[in-house]
């Protein structure tokens, strides 16, 4: 082990990490018996080691895979055929520890692994990080469950010059140790075989040895470091994205590329083809002429101003679908490259002023995909105060993919300055609110410690799979709500509700915000789904009903305005109804105030776009 310079440094100088350990009695855990319920296998491991990939390989179900810690929030269940048995398989969020100060997700995983429901534990580990993995192995062993250790990503470990004596390690631990490359399916057959013969781990408690020392000693014994052969380009890129001199231009380039792909290609070219040509010239005229045969009520219901097809389906498929699809594609690429967490290095200081830390960049950027999902991801943040601030900021300022793209689609067509004004105002608003929240709310922020995933060239297959899954989710989630929204508007229109709404909200909408009265409808739609409202604005702008200034004001208010129903329900679920109500009121007030100020400022300064 001469090439292990870290061998044998003074462990006794590490104070306080005591870990009382009682060895489990293997005889107490029968491995095979007739079961009342299927055998339950739990996948566990450090963050970003590929648990979801192994899960996908074993069950044939796709669990979202990305290249950053914390992709899996909550537990995913699936079924896998192991030997002759159908087993329940549980994919858990990544954990770094099972005792001490635990995050919400770590506590959930601990309960599952230690609880009576888990029959067999499969620890997935990054082969490059044996020492860290073994520290977790020790803690899993304390639960006394039969287990298997999977060393995943051995290909990358080999590229880093790391080799592991798997047989030696297996003998030492007394459990099967399997090498895999889950992304390519290598080693999965061996894993399936091993799953039929798990064993309780032999973690010998020697006096004076804690888990840190134990893991270190084992890693020194069974891990060999040879010459690295990592691609130079990869190393260079990793350096370039995190250094300010190169990193900031790269960030601008990434944003601009996103704008070109989503805002121009998606929101203008593709929407133009679908809405302008396919729906505008072929489908909708056909629907209108066919519906002309029906009684007037049915005709309007399907093909009128608020028709299910002419409005609901057109909005969902022709305006929003191209935009979310292009966004999810580029977003998946960024997720898998390992780029997003590196933004935390730049933004740490800014977020600290807002009572958060650089880690918050993850939920914020994910919010650009979908605020509802991102609200769940705030669980990775350290303290309740941080989670609350992040949830408020997501609800207030972060536009979701569909909304973002309709913003780009409308304002990109007016002027670049208009677009920058909107983003400037919204960002400023978020910073101010975050800054105040950091000082008003009780509690602390946690310290910034973030693991950066390796920079990788993304696999097209995974991006496509993820995009297909997300688009399917969008269709399942959004289209019904678009239809319900359309029916609601149709009914409101029939009973005169829309006229009433326009009249009641006129002082605010027309007086304060200077917008056409019809915009009130759009705001109602925006509550059902943000992107539905944005699509409504898109429609208004296309009909030439909005001036440049009005478009900027309307979109700013819409961006800041209340989160959609799904997001609000998620906030209720994560933080309770009182917090949700408070956020709702707060966000509405901020949105209307900002819009009013903006409207009058434009007027006073004679700004037009």
């Amino acid at each position, binding site marked *: 082990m001469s090439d292990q*310079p*870290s061998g044998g440094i003074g462990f*006794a*100088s590490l104070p*306080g990490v005591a870990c009382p350990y009682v060895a489990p009695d293997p005889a107490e855990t029968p491995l095979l018996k007739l079961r009342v319920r299927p055998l339950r296998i739990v996948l566990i491991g450090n963050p970003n080691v590929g648990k979801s990939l192994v899960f996908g390989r074993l069950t044939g179900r796709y669990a979202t895979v990305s290249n950053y810690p914390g992709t899996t929030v909550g537990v995913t269940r699936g079924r896998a055929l192991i030997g002759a048995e159908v087993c329940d398989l549980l994919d858990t969020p990544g954990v770094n520890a099972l005792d001490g100060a635990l995050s919400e997700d770590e506590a959930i995983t601990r309960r599952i692994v230690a609880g009576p429901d888990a029959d067999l534990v499969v620890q997935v580990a990054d082969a490059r990080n044996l020492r860290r993995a073994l*520290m977790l192995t020790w803690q899993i062993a304390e639960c006394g469950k039969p287990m298997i250790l999977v060393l995943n990503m051995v290909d990358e470990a080999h590229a880093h010059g790391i080799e592991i004596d798997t047989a030696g390690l297996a003998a030492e631990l007394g459990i099967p140790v399997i090498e895999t490359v889950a992304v390519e399916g290598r080693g999965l057959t061996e894993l399936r075989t091993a799953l039929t013969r798990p064993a309780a781990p032999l973690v010998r408690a020697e006096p004076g040895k804690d888990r*840190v020392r134990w893991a270190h000693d084992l890693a020194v014994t069974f891990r060999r470091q040879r010459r690295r052969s990592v691609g130079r380009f990869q190393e260079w890129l990793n350096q370039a994205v995190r*250094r300010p001199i190169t990193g900031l231009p790269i960030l601008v380039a990434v944003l601009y590329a996103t704008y070109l792909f989503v805002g121009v290609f998606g929101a203008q070219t593709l929407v133009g083809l679908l809405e302008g040509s396919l729906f505008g010239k072929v489908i909708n005229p056909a629907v209108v002429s066919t519906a002309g045969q029906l009684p007037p009520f049915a005709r309007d219901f399907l093909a009128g101003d608020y028709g299910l097809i002419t409005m609901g389906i057109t909005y969902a498929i022709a305006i929003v679908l191209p935009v979310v699809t292009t966004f999810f594609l580029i977003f998946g690429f960024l997720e898998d490259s390992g780029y997003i967490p590196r933004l935390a290095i730049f933004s740490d200081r800014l977020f600290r002023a807002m009572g958060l830390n650089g880690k918050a960049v993850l939920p914020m950027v994910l919010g650009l995909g979908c605020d509802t999902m991102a609200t769940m991801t705030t669980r990775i943040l350290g303290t309740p105060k941080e989670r609350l601030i992040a949830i408020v900021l997501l609800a207030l300022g972060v536009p979701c993919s569909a909304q973002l793209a309709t913003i780009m689609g409308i304002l990109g067509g007016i002027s670049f300055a208009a677009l920058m004004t909107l983003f400037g105002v919204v960002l400023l608003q978020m910073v101010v609110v975050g800054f105040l929240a950091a000082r008003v709310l009780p509690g602390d922020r946690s*310290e910034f410690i973030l693991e*950066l995933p390796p920079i990788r060239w993304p696999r097209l297959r995974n991006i496509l799979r993820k995009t297909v899954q997300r688009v399917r989710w969008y269709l399942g989630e959004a289209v019904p709500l678009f239809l319900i929204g359309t029916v609601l508007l149709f009914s409101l229109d029939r009973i005169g509700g829309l006229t009433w709404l326009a009249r009641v909200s006129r002082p605010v909408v027309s007086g304060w915000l200077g917008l056409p009265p019809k915009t009130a409808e759009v705001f109602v739609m925006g509550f059902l789904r943000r992107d539905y409202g944005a699509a409504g604005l898109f429609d208004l702008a296309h009909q030439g009903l909005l001036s440049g200034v009005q478009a900027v004001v309307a979109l700013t208010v819409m961006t800041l305005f209340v989160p959609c129903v799904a997001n609000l329900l998620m906030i209720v679920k994560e933080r309770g109804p009182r917090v949700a109500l408070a956020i709702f009121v707060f966000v509405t007030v901020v949105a209307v105030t900002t819009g009013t100020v903006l409207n009058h400022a434009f007027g006073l300064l004679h700004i037009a776009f």
Partner: protein
Amino acid sequence: MPLGCSISRFDEARPLSSLEPGAIGVVVRVLRDRADRADRLAALGVTPGARIHVLQTFPGIVFQCDETELAVERTVARSILIDIADRASGTRLATST
């Protein structure tokens, strides 16, 4: 664990926050003035014996600990004591107590 045991070795150790980019060394100790921080670092592999390579110090501190790349704020880096590689190679002790 009482302070003072083999204190002479800690004299040579420097906090991670004071190192330049490119510095290589070994973690000697992680201060436990905040236990939760030390636990989180330990879970990420920052424990005595781990090899450290400082990659960057501005705008945040980024370092590699064994095969894990970590970004931390300065306060955290201050609590990680490092034995710089060139000095460490000759004089390393097997165990301290």
